[in-house]
Every structure is written in C-alpha cells, then in structure tokens.
C-alpha cells in the first residue's frame, strides 16, 4: 500500500467513481466503454461528466452489444490500451461469456505469453433491491471455474478503491463485481491518492474464537451485524471477508478455521456449485481434523433467481437474523 496522507468518507459508488476518475487522469491508455457510460455517465452515475472531461474517444457509449463490449476491449488490451469495460448489470453479461471465458482468460495462455489481456470488466450484481429475475443475479460462480480470470467482490469502500486500483494495474483480466445494494448503503473511510490492495487477499473483518464465517459482498455486512448480535449473547464469531474470489486466499481461511474449528460459509448466490462448494471442499481436504462440526453453507435456495414480489425476494435473500440463527446453531453444535 502506498503512503497516503488523509482519507474521507465515501460510499461504494463514490469509491468506484473516484478510482475510475483517478485512473483516467493517470494514464491516457485507460478507456472506459459500455452502455450509457458517456452521455448519462452510467446508470448509477458512476462516470457522470467523465465524457466532458476525457472526451468520447475515452468514454465510449457502445451499442447494446455485450459480446463486443468485452471483445473489443480484449482487442484494445492486446494492442496496448488499458480498457475498463462495463456491463450495465451483471445479468446482461451472458452474451459476453464467450469473450470472457474463451478469449480474455486464455489470451496469454494460448499465445504462450506473446499476447496479454490487461482488462477490467466491472459490473453491478446482487439483490435486495427489488431487481427481480434479471437485475439481481450473482454471477461469480459462473466464472470462478475459469483459470486465467481474476474475480474480485469487495464489500467496503476502501477495499473497492484499493482492489479496483489493483485490478486496473493488473496485467491480466479481472472481473470486478460491485454489489449494487452496497452502492449507496455502505459508507466508509477511503484513503486519498493511489493505493492498491493485493488481489487474492482476504480480510478478517471481525476476530472471534468459536466460529469462522466466510462471506463476500453485501452479506459481509449482514454477517457482521449478526456476529455483533452473537457477541452480545456471549458467543464469539470471526468474520472473514473474502474480497477476492479468484485467486482465493486459502491461507487466511485455513488459519481462521484451524483457530475456531468451525466453518460457516454465507453467500447470496445459489448453494449448488457456488463459491461455498469450493471453500468447503478445500477445507475438508486440508483441515478436516481441525473441525469440531460439519461445515455448513448458508446460501440462496436452488431456484434461478429472486422474484420481483417482496415475499419472493425476501425468501430468496438471507437476513442478519437468519444468519445469526445459523451462527448460533454452529457455535452450539
């Protein structure tokens, strides 16, 4: 981390905006492209007025064509630019799957290092915002299977900035996931100036002794709320914010689990084949005899996505109270 002199309070949307702005200022190879990123300045106003300052050549309002938003960014990256592609909502990333998985992730590998793909793909994901079936999905599990990609899903504004800077500086493709419910909900101190947080490093956001909870994104905040509740009941829960999904910080997860001897994984995405599946398998392989209870995953039910109607959304999403209950059961096991 570079030395920084001061900090200020930003929400997650402001943290993304500030980081992108500084990246555009710092390097004229940086290009932002996506739907409505220019004239409107992104649907969440993240890049508002960028087009006036940096010009339409650097802030490109693309046609509605996700495969080529990413594909053109791959080509720019192969030829020396540093594109930051935006997919307006993660739900619309499917047309670009081919370019992300088949192309970006394999450019360096297939050319034996001759060509590289320094590319960031940013996209808002996640629910709890009445986003219905197609404005609320989590997509990380569809991509974390793929070597060659890096995937980041920060929860706090300071991590948003540090990890987005790291993603932009990184010489390989990074999928940068921004939980849209945290955009304005979550505020925090953000250091001024350029600093990076290494990709692939988790963060213990609350220390505890009786249970390890691993989560990422919005649910880190809810898990923290639940853990505080348990604290008041005299139960001690450690919360690990994964921050990066790929590479994954095995060491931090294992050392926490070896200390607390119990593991609860919480994520908003579906359980089947989700990030929790890999974490459980890894811990079972490497630390089974440290465990005093079966590993548990508290995840979304096995349905395609959350419905629009409030009860459907609430049934799909967890809550701090549900998380607290799962934690209690684990601690008391």
């Amino acid at each position, binding site marked *: 981390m570079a030395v920084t002199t001061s900090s200020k309070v930003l929400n997650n949307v402001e943290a993304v905006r500030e980081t992108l702005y500084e990246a555009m200022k710092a390097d004229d190879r940086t*290009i932002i492209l996506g739907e409505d990123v220019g004239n409107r300045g992104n649907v969440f106003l993240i890049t508002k007025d960028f087009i006036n300052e940096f010009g339409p*050549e*650097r802030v490109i309002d*693309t*046609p509605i*064509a996700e*495969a*080529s938003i*990413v*594909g*053109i*960014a*791959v*080509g*720019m*990256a*192969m*030829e*020396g*630019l540093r*594109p930051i592609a935006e997919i307006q909502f993660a739900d619309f990333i499917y*047309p670009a799957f*081919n*370019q992300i998985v*088949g*192309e970006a992730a*394999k*450019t*360096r*590998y*297939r*050319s*034996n*290092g*001759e*060509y*590289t793909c320094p590319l960031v793909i940013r996209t808002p994901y996640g629910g709890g915002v009445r986003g219905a079936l197609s404005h609320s999905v989590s997509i990380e599990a569809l991509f974390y299977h793929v*070597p*060659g990609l*890096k995937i980041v899903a920060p929860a706090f504004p300071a991590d948003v900035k540090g990890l987005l800077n790291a993603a932009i500086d990184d*010489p*390989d493709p990074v999928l940068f996931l921004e939980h849209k419910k945290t955009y304005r909900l979550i505020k925090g101190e953000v250091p001024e100036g350029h600093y990076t947080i290494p990709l692939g490093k988790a963060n213990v956001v609350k220390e505890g002794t009786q249970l390890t909870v691993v989560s990422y994104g919005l649910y880190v905040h809810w898990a923290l709320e639940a853990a505080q509740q348990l604290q008041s009941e005299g139960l001690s829960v450690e919360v690990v914010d994964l921050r990066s999904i790929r*590479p*994954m910080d*095995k060491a931090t997860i294992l050392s926490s689990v070896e200390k607390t001897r119990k593991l609860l994984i919480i994520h908003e995405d579906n359980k089947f084949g989700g990030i929790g599946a890999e974490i459980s398998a890894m811990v079972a392989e490497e630390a089974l005899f440290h465990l005093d209870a079966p590993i548990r995953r508290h995840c979304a039910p096995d349905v395609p996505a959350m419905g629009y109607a409030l009860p459907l959304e609430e049934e799909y999403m967890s809550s701090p109270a549900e998380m607290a209950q799962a934690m209690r059961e684990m601690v008391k096991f």
Partner: protein
Amino acid sequence: MAKTETKATSLERHGLTDEQLRQMFRNMLMQRQLDNRGFQLNRQGKVPFALGSEGHEALQAGAAMAFHRGKDILAPYYRDLGLALGIGLTPYEILLSLFARAADHNGGRQFPNHYSSKAAGLMSFSSILAAHIPHAVGAAYAIKYRKETERAVLVTCGDGTTSEGEWHESMNFAAIHKLPLVMLVENNEWAISTPLDKQMAQPEIWKRAAGYGMPGKRFNGFDPIATYGAVNEALERARSGGGPTLLEGTCYRYLAHSTDDNDMTYRTKEEVTEHRKDDPVPQFERSLLDARVMSIADVDAMKKDVLRETNDATDRAEAMPYPAASDLYTHLYEGAWQPWQ
C-alpha cells in the same frame, strides 16, 4: 531465378511489379506444398490433425501483398496459411505449429493453423469462430485512438462465420467509429458441411456493408491480382482515415474441412471437379507465363525450391523437442502464481 521481361503483359497490374507477382505465385505454391505436407504427415501418423487452404491460395497471396509489414495488423482465422506466409511467417514456423513443438509461437498449445506472432503483427486467436473479429475492431480502435496514421487492421473469416453475432456487432461498431479496418470474408461456399444457402438467405455477403454504412465489394478470389487491387484499395482507405470496408472474395474449398472430415458425405466429386477447372494456382501460372513474367524454367525452378524449403522446414521442425510437461503450467498469469490444488 532467371531475369524476365516486364513488358508484354496482358495483366491488369494494380501497380504490382514483376517481383511482387512472382512473390505472390511463390506464396501460392508454398501454400499448396505445405497443405499437402500437412495431410501427408497426418496420414503417416506423425501429426494428429491438419487443415488446408487449397482453393484460397490466390485470395490470400493477393491480400497479403497489400499488407504493410511493420505497420498493419492481421487478425486471421485458421484457413489463412497464405496470409500468414505472405506477411512474413516462415514455413518452418508453420511446421513447428503442425508438429506442436515447444518453439512454436503458441508453445504447442493450440491446434495447427492458429498462427500468432506479435513480431509480425499477427494477433493470436482461438478456435472460437468470430471471437477474433471484435479483437480486430479493438486493435483498430487503438490505432485510431493513438492517431497512428498509415496503419490498419486486416481481419478475415469464412462465409459461415459471418452468421455469428460477434461478426455483426463488430461491423456495426467499426462503422460507427469509422475505424481503420478491412473485413475480408473468404467465401468458399462451405462451412464444414453446411452450404451457403443454409447460412444466409441473401448470398452476397458484401451487400451487407450498406446496412452498416460502409463500402462493400466483391471480387474474384481466384485472381490474386484482383484480390490485391480490392484489398489494397480498402486498406489504403482505412489507413488514410476513410473508415472500414467489407470485402468478399469468392473462392472454393477443394479439400475436406480438415483431416477429420470426409466431404464426400455431403458434396459430390463432380462439384469439386467442376471447381478444379478454375484452380487458381495453374491459372495464375498460365497468366504469368503468358505475360512473360516467368518462363517455364523459372516456374520449374520455383516449384523445386518450394519443395526443397518445405522438406527442409519439415526436417528441422520435426527434430525439435515437444514442450515439457511442466510447460502446462506457464503463462497463465504474469509472474509466479499458485495453482489451486
């Protein structure tokens, strides 16, 4: 090679010199020789897979002649042996890839014919059809953004590949931004076993250009000089800020799709024989002889030389080592990385 007269030629030259015409012809002969070699090596059990560009020789030799080495970027597809050779890759490099040797540009990772050379300006591509076309558009954007005049991107694909969504998206974006790009479609009438009329209702691909708002042109891809003329004109326009062009070169695929395909299950021998009458290689040979750009002795000497170079490259490439098993783990990310275990 003996000196030849430049005068009495009936050829429409598009400014090409005798030497350039001979280079194009040599490229065509080399394509055919290397295609042949790939299929031979496959039958001998020495390589698991080969794919030929027979029927595309003239189109590719002509297009490559319009490419400015050290300036332009080529984003080709797997049937572009002649383009790869024509912009500077050597038969030895082609054979390294055929034998999947460590010294191959891709380190033996990709199928043969998946040319890549940063030094030559040849963009790496995968086997995923049309996926490289947006990459070419991104490269053209980079050229325009950096205000690099005198540079353009030549991107190619087959007729079948024009059905992909990424093809359309790329044309649309290139036209909106007036990018220095030439989209060259090599229409050989087949996409593995699927004929053109099952690929599109309107069979003249070049006409789609109007829909995107760019110029389009169709030319006889059995004629290397006509090809050169069309590609050169389009590349010049692109280099000088005139925006993209959609070109369609008509040709034919004489061989099966690859060594893994039997084309007699879906087309007739008669159809292939009919197209053989127009085979661009002997046709161009006759033109060069008629125009006295080459003599029969010149042609014979060139054919011998091409065979010698192919044999030599085959022996050298075959003698090179495979990648080590441990090479599976390199070049995933920059620097050291910890594989997940």
